[in-house]
């Protein structure tokens, strides 16, 4: 009824202007919202992690550590030596001896140590223990005298080799 007449008497320009303003406001509002949502608000990580070259790699039955990993573990080494060992009978002889802290037992009783053939490279080597004197194990069989063995950190090398990590 009256609405049309009222609107009919208004001129076009303010209406068009108002329409433009309204349209602009809406568009600006939408854009601003989009900006706020995308740019300002932090979004969660969606990029996939690249394949990690981990602290340790296992290949050909060897465990290879990075420099950092070795420091983290606090790897320390000792050596297989020839020492004077006193037999129960009383006589002493030169026997192969390894620090007991280097010894690990396998599930079936076979003992082994981790040797260090190259820097940051470790490999298991089986040993046969004849007897234990204090903190040294007298070997009847094992790597040659002078071989470096890991005395601290062998449990973690074991874990790395059998993939207890990750």
């Amino acid at each position, binding site marked *: *009824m009256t*609405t*049309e007449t009222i*609107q009919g008497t208004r001129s076009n320009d303010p*209406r068009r202007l*108002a*329409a433009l*303003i*309204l*349209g602009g406001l*809406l568009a600006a*509002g*939408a854009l601003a*919202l*989009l900006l*706020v*949502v995308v740019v*300002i*608000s*932090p*979004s*969660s*990580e*969606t*990029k*996939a*992690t690249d394949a*990690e070259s*981990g*602290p*340790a790699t296992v290949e050909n039955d060897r*465990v290879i*550590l*990075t420099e950092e*990993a070795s420091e*983290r*573990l*606090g790897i320390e080494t000792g050596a297989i030596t020839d020492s004077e060992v006193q037999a129960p009978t009383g006589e002493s002889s030169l026997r192969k001896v390894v620090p*007991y802290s280097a010894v690990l*037992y*396998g*599930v*079936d*009783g076979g003992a082994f140590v981790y040797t260090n053939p190259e820097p940051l490279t470790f490999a298991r080597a089986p040993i046969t*223990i004849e*007897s*234990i004197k204090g903190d040294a*194990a007298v070997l009847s069989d094992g790597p040659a005298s002078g071989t470096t063995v890991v005395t*601290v950190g062998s*449990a*973690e*090398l*074991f*874990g*790395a*080799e*059998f993939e*207890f*990590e*990750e």
Partner: protein
Amino acid sequence: MMRAIVGWSLRFRFLLIFLAAGLMFFGYRDVRNMPVDVFPEFAPPRVEVQTLSVGLNSTEVESQVTIPLEDALNGVQDLDIMRSKSVSDLSSITLYFKPGTDLMRARQLVTERLSVAQATLPTWAAPPFIMPPVSATRRVLMIGLSSETIPLTDLSMTAYWKIRARLLRVPGVANVAIWGERLKMLQVQADPERMRGNGVSLDEVMETTADAVDAGLLRYSEGAVIGTGGYLDTANQRLVIRHVPPVLTPAALAQVPLKEHPALHLSDVADVLEDHQPLVGDAVVNDQPGLLLVVDKFPWANTLETTHGLERALDELRPALTGVQIDANIFRPATFIDMSIENLTRALIIGSLLVVVILIAFLFEWRTALISLVAMPLSLMVALLVLHQMGATINVMVLAGLVIAIGVVVDDAIIDVENIWRRLRQQRLEGQEKSTAATILDASLEVRSAIVHATLMDLVVLMPVFFLEGLTGSFFRPLALSFVLAVLASMLVALTVTPALALMLLSKAPLHGREPPLRRLLQAGYSSVLRRIIRRPAAAYVSVATVVLVGLIVAPQLGEELLPTFKERDFLTHWITAPGTSHPEEARITTEGTEALRAIPGVQTVGAHIGQAFLAEEVVGVNFGENWISVDPNADYDPTIEAIEETVGTYPGLLHEVETYLKETTEEVLTGTSQPIVVRINGPDLPVLREKAEEVEEALSSIEGIDELHKDLQVDVPQVQVKVDLDKAQHYGVKPGDVRRAAGVLVSSEEVADIYQGGKTYEVQVWSTPKTRENLGSIEELLIDTPTGGHVRLGDIAEIRVAPTPNVVQRENQSRRIDVLAGVKGRDLGSVSRDVQSALSEIEFPLGYHAEMLGEFNERQQAQDRLVLFGIGSAIGVLLLLGAAFGNWRLAILSFLTLPSALVGGVLAAYAGDGVISLGSLVGFLTVFGIAARNGIMLISHFQYLEDHEGETFGVDLVLRGARERIAPILMTASAAALALVPLVVAGSIPGNEIEHPMAVVILGGLVTSTILNLFIVPSLYLQFGRRGRRLAQTA
């Protein structure tokens, strides 16, 4: 009836306002003291039974202790799942009951069964005990104790007898477990060499020690009977004689003569000293051995309150603990709650201020702004008070429900006031004769009748939530409940307080000034745009269809995640070496770890616990450690987390995953483990289970998004097996039982007496010198007494070898099981789970074995299926309500069909933001739906009102006028809701906002499309389809 309510409110307005003010005032105090927690109690009722079985390995524990107990407990009423773990020396069975079971009754039933089952257990298995009932997120505080001056043994005794006892008195505390406890005790360390040299047997040493002290424990020794002191009766008095136990120092005990060799003393065959028990666990605090006290809370306890109580107790104890460093910040979930509340409050305050701005900008009238501003908090307050009366805690779900309701609350507050203002202005300008009160009454009812339908629609949409089961049910129900309460409160306030306030404030107000410029501008611009669109509605429909299409395309691209990652400041990382690793090594590498972690900037403190503790819930070996990392609240969150993960990742050979406690416990409750993806393989034979687990692991390793894939640590570990050769033993006259007892005492010690002193109990143990048991060779050299008084080497009468034994045996519902576990990274949980399921279906399992997938995804899938069913029911309800609101079925169906397009904006916003649909986004969609529905209904019913009550004929003019009159309130609601949420979006996903942030994102996006829908599409629709055949309402 509504007319009566509004009328009554107008008449008694002063009384009403007074009551409302009182409610606000007293209510505020009550609400401030409401218990607050992060999660509702979501775990099903559960009972844990632990049985110490010293001397048995895992398979022995399983067959001799766990299985008989499982058989006895099987079939307890309301039992849902029974899970068990058997490790060396310990059996643990957890019974999960159906949700809704009364916990106390369940415990009662379990106790009854246990007392019968006890008789079937071996005598050296200590009686099974039931752990105290604990909450789903059980740990409420972790306290590290260390000292430079006080030895750890003394500290342990104080911690157990004084500190623990005091902490247990704090309301809400269920249990305090102490890791690293080194009980101070007297040890008689027998030296077999010296014993042999003097011809003394082990039995003699043990009996001498037991008899030497007042309270001996050996049943057949004289010391077992504590003599009474007796009494003297004089003619007048009775004097009781009491023997005060002397202080027995190691030196004094060492001088005790041996029973059968009185010329010799204990010191001749043994070292007598103060030492501690063999350790099955340890703790690292401040990078050195210390004590870690872990406090668990009851299911009904409140985290904040309990934490404050504990801290007060510690403050009371502090003066007496000089020289002891007490660190109560290692794990403090209350900090997260405090931060969340602070952040949320800040966001709400800023939001409210922005709403004020909008109201004033649109209405240019401070009085109306005031009315709206009073109505909104009043509604929320009423809802919270009702919740308080119901005994609920404020948690993130309740808050989420209130936030959904904000859309309704804001809308209610605005549209009533806006319409009252408009009608009052009209009345003043046109000089109508109606009184102010009558105008207000009619204006309120004009709006209310329509809005009731919209409110009911909101409620109908949320109905399905009340029917959810399981974990999702316990999570979502508080949300639905708080939403319903807020909406009802808002309706009540709109019917009572708003009109009353309006009458009070606006009756004398000069409302006939110029129309607010913003309003005029918007109306004019809108009219011209709408006029053009209405003439060519086809374009409008096409655009709706396009928008819906876009939404349908984008929606499946979104990932899914049930729970967000809460930005807690407390992390834990497992620190697990290969099973079979020793305690010294685990302690060493854990100390290395804590040192490295503490060096990270932003890390406040790190405490670690290893292995088991008395009365604790960790059923693990000493190779198992957990580092608890507390991050400074002021530190930069993401970089610190990255640094932690990086540091942790540099350690090879260890199982380490960085998690937050909340995430770990929710997953643990869901699956019994702590990973989101779990494949559980059931079957009888351990080697076959392990083989199948390998196969499954292999198959899963190639799936993208799988992170930290590993099997349950069920492996064989080396074990020293001693098997007596009966012939050889008989040759020496030694019985197998003698061998076991003697070897047991020499290798693992035996408690033979107790000393009571100063309110504490000290044990007296007989053990062997460390040299006697230091390596495999020494075991062979152990000297066993023979009946003739001689000795024989253990190696001569027994076969000693290293053999494999499983480190743990896990069972579920009386079947052995093994799990393959994985986390998810870089892809969303839903898609990864689906890939896992298809990979599983390709693997063959032998007869008697089967695999199933558990975890977050499973739970959500079930919840989704149920939701779909109930959703259909809700949709029908919505359609019916629309029909009732409009009185026109064509219109109802069309509205129903266009409503989803309002949600598309939310979908797009979610896609642009996080790219996942989560709990928060779902809440957001509900809110947008509610707002879109309300605005649509308001618009259409206004058109109908104009036709029925103001004599407008159906046509373009009617639509244009109706739309023009509604644009202001529609835009007001939309912008008020949007601005109220902007602080939440800008703040990001900070503590307290993890659910609210994605919700706000979705709401903002949805508001854009729903407003456009309501402003341009609904009028066109009405013009096309809204012509009613019969006039259903009266003409004005």
